[in-house]
């Protein structure tokens, strides 16, 4: 048997070790999320359990936004509007047809995914700033639509609004009736969605996206169907938003049309960038920033608008200096620490032959 020439052997070895590292990081992510799912309901009080449910739902939506920006460099400023679409679908199906909760969540994901793709079709030929503007217009339009329509709350008719009767809360899954149980449930959905996104990143779509990011010309030369993979990314991001919306609806019980303004979508994108779009830890951090930090400030009686100022400043900071977001800074810190602890003389990131 002839030996592989040295370069090829080296390559195969590197590929194997890369695959091993990636699988390990995937297991790490799932392990951390499962641990949080089981431990958080036990440590947190009533207020924080409810807040963390919202944070988990928002993090699910952020994963889509982070995917579009991190993998493809596309700025989508309508993610929270798609959360609203998902929430509306889940509520309508739950109140009107009494479907089981999981089916409502999946239907919500599909509805938001379809909306994202249809609405994104005119935008798919555009990049950069124009895409950002178009999605902002869509978020603005959705804001007007949902303020006038409202969310279903147990009533009759297509809109499902209760007129003159009690407003109904969304039915939760049988095993997750209590707030603590629902938090575990929400974290499991978050783990599933993050796993789905990670699987995408590691397989063919991920490679196609990386090529598209390099440049359309390069992607076309490599035989990648740019339109198809871009649409796929939009669809996946919409799915994440829809699932997030359904989980949010189940957590609060009802959604309010006035809470889905264009400004919410803008904040969601801004804090995704601050959290970090290249790693799943950034997604979790963004969810916490969007829901847990305001809750913390409310607890201490700090004016909510000071938080807005802080987030604006963090966004500018994240864009200028910390491009991988808070998650990137933390991971760099952890990597540096672990290397020091191992007493290794190998500097991370530098190639040694």
């Amino acid at each position, binding site marked *: 048997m002839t030996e592989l020439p040295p370069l090829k052997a080296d390559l195969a070895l590197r590929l194997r070790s890369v695959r091993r590292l990636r699988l390990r990081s995937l297991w790490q992510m799932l392990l951390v999320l499962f641990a949080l799912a089981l431990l958080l309901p036990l440590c947190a009080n*009533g207020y924080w359990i*409810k807040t963390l449910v*919202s944070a988990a739902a928002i993090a699910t939506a952020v994963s889509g936004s982070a995917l579009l920006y991190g993998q493809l460099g596309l700025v989508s400023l309508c993610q929270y509007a798609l959360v609203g679409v998902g929430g509306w679908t889940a509520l309508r199906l739950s109140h009107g047809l009494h479907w089981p909760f999981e089916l409502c969540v999946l239907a919500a994901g599909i509805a938001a995914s379809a909306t994202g793709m249809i609405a994104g079709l005119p935008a798919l030929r555009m990049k950069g700033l124009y895409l950002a503007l178009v999605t902002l217009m869509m978020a603005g339009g959705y804001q007007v639509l949902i303020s006038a329509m409202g969310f279903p709350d147990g009533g009759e008719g297509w809109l499902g*609004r209760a*007129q003159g009767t009690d407003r109904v809360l969304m039915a939760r899954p049988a095993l997750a009736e209590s707030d603590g149980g629902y938090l575990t449930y929400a974290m499991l959905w978050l783990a599933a969605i993050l796993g789905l996104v990670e699987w995408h990143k590691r397989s063919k779509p991920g490679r196609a996206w990386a090529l598209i990011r390099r440049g359309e010309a390069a992607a076309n030369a490599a035989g990648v169907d740019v339109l198809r993979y871009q649409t796929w990314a939009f669809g996946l991001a919409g799915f994440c938003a829809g699932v997030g919306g359904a989980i949010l609806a189940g957590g609060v019980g009802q959604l309010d049309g006035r809470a889905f303004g264009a400004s919410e979508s803008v904040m969601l994108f801004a804090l995704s960038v601050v959290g970090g779009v290249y790693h799943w830890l950034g997604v979790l951090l963004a969810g916490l920033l969007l829901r847990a930090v305001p809750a913390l400030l*409310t607890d201490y009686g700090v004016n*909510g608008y000071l938080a807005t100022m802080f987030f604006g400043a963090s966004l500018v900071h994240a864009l200028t200096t910390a491009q991988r977001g808070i998650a990137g800074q933390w991971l760099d810190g952890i990597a540096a620490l672990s290397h020091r602890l191992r007493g290794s003389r190998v500097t991370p990131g530098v190639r040694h032959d």
Partner: protein
Amino acid sequence: MTNTLIQRGARAAALLVLLGAAMGASSAFAQNKPNCGLGNGKKATGEPIAIGAVVGKTGPDDFSASAASAAAYFRCVNDNGGINGRPVNYIVADDQWNPETASQVAAKLVRDNKVVAMAGSSSFVECGANAKLYAQEDVMVIAGTGVPRECFFSKNYAPVNTGPRVSATLVGAYAATAYKAKKMVCVIPNIPSLGNWACEGAKGWGKAHGVEVETLAIDPGSADATSVMLQAASKKPEVILLNVPKGIMVPMLAAAEQQGLNKKIHFVSTTPGYNSDVPKAIGPAWNNAFDLHLEFLPVESAGPDNSNWKAVMNAYADKDAPRDSFAQGGYLAARIVTDTLLKLDPKKLDRASVSAALRKVSGFKSDMLCKPFYVGNGARHNGNSSGPIAQVSGNGFKQIAACETAQEPELDDIRADEKKLGL
């Protein structure tokens, strides 16, 4: 010698005058001393009783005056013997006008802080978000202000104010009578549970009295108040009834003034316009030309309870805390809860007994209210359905009509409940 006599006389007279002034001042000072709870001047030192409130502070408007006033009252109570020796631990939470946040803070107050009741809540969004939680956990809420329909159709929620529907009915009835109107337009934000509900009372009243009332539901986020005013005016009414928050009422009046509509049509408003910033913001064109319904008696009334409220605010609230009708509502809610708790055994104060006692509240009198307040055992609560009318005058308001009680078909069940309670 005559000089000395005169001098002595003058000195005596001066002394007498000074004494008289001192006595007068001290009695005036005694009148200004607030009277709360047991009124015994002793600080309460027992085990605290947790009472909560949810207010909409950060957002389109600031409703927190209600809880600030209730907080001042509870502080006064704690300085005057507390609830039979036990102080009140009053916890206020801001729901930021977001139902998600409202359900989070309600869970905190009810499950973590274990409040026995809520007093002085004042939020646009929490009634819908939390009604189920309050019913499940049997927490009674004596709210300072309720706005959307859910606040007046909940088993456990009893607002002290009249609400926008009753307010519109009362001011519409007044305007139709005073200005001999045959047609009125009622402007209301197109928010679910408000847009399709709050103008219908005036409509119902109008139907029974030969006055046509048309509802105009507007987008509160719209930037164009002029078109709304033009549209309302195009229906050729004699009266335009604004049933909107003061933040959008002021631009509407500005647009109406710019278009000269204030000279052709009478403008009236529900309670949200009753705020000390409003007369200055809307300007001199509306002097003696803009009427509104008040949910309680005017802020400047001289009645004993109203004066007590002002004394409590002066002694225990921030200098900049608003002294408006929200604050009046908060004070009344706090007083209702305090008076109820004082009648119970301080060692056995739990949620169940407090809720049962609050439901039995009936005939609660105050000169701030047109009629005595009650809670009752009904499926819904609207204990205050009356109010006087005031008018913008200079940089303030003046009362121009006495207390009236609303008459409209939706209040039939409330009237039936009142009859059963013997009110």
